[in-house]
């Protein structure tokens, strides 16, 4: 968090935080079964567009990467690639117990168990599957974090890139992706 000379948060940061938190664009990329909860959340039943959430077509236009469910190692490669293409500010919301500890795939040979070892996660939403209310509650938490300037996953990723890369390369053996250059 940037502070001014009196140790208080800059006003301009508070304004940008407020603005950012109220127009979250999500990458429309469903990784697992959890993506089935998104259509009811974004359509008329729960209508999350009233909170400023929208789905975006490309990673370069998106602010939030929603990881909806289990990640096969093959999918993880695409997720990392998408995450690195996103422009800052960027946030990751992981939902479903699969992203937290593997969920029902905890002894599967081809799915990762702890997502925060591969990309930084700002908000975890528990459940298998979380209902749209839970998903929206998680996004409210993310909004609060952004307003307070605490959602700094991208910064964490930049600073600990070697550790993340090490973990990623442990799973993705044939690493043919370009270097991360912000």
């Amino acid at each position: 968090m940037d502070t001014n000379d009196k140790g208080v948060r800059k006003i301009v940061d508070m304004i940008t935080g407020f603005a950012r938190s109220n127009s979250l664009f999500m990458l429309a990329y469903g990784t697992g079964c959890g993506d089935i909860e998104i259509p009811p959340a974004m359509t008329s039943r729960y209508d999350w567009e009233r909170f400023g959430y929208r789905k975006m077509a490309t990673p370069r236009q998106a602010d939030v990467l929603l990881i909806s469910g289990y990640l096969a190692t093959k999918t993880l490669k695409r997720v990392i690639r998408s995450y690195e293409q996103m422009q800052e500010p960027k946030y990751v919301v992981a939902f479903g117990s699969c992203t937290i500890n593997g969920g029902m795939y905890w002894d599967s040979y081809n799915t990762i168990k702890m997502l925060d070892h591969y990309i930084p996660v700002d908000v975890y939403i528990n459940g298998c599957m979380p209902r749209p209310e839970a998903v929206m509650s998680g996004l409210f938490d993310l909004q609060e974090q952004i307003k307070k300037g605490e959602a700094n996953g991208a910064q964490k990723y930049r600073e600990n890139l070697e550790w993340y890369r090490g973990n990623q390369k442990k799973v993705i053996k044939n690493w043919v992706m370009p270097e991360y250059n912000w």
Partner: protein
Amino acid sequence: MTTENNNLEREEAVVVALKATFPDLTARVKRIRRVEASVSKALTPSVLVHAKNVLGYKALSHISCVDWIEDEHFELVYILWNPDEKIQLLIKTLISRENATMENIDTIWRQANTYQREMREMFGIEFPGFVGAKEFLLEDWDDMPPMRRDFDTKEFVKEAFFLRPGREDAKDVRDTIAKRSKEEIPEFAKKYSREK
């Protein structure tokens, strides 16, 4: 054709027709609309061609593989479907588990290509002369084929991935509820308990 029809004449006729051409094969009616035949490995392609061209089993629904690790062989099951007679024919064949190879049949049915790719990746069965994309579902896999029964999934997971601590705390649900409500667990149910 109704489900009450327990007359197996059409199924018996398939068994007779198969045995007439291939005396070595053992075939039996499993139930209505399902016939099963066990064939030797060498004979399998000719039985498949015969079933397709002569008996009318035009569609290959699936090729499935069973790992009989105790008997040291794989069992391949070719599931064929006759759309006119509405009869399913299972052709089973045993192949050795060591250096498992099988005849490539994607010249008979093109869709066999996909199933053979899957078997190559998941069980390590080789198909000489078979051209297909190398990877099917797994990417950069360099361990033992994962569907083989001697592949220790749990050990692999422990090595390859990070496991969040705390899962070992998982308690037996039945025991927890019984303890909470001071309930007696019946004697026969105690052997299923996870609490030692």
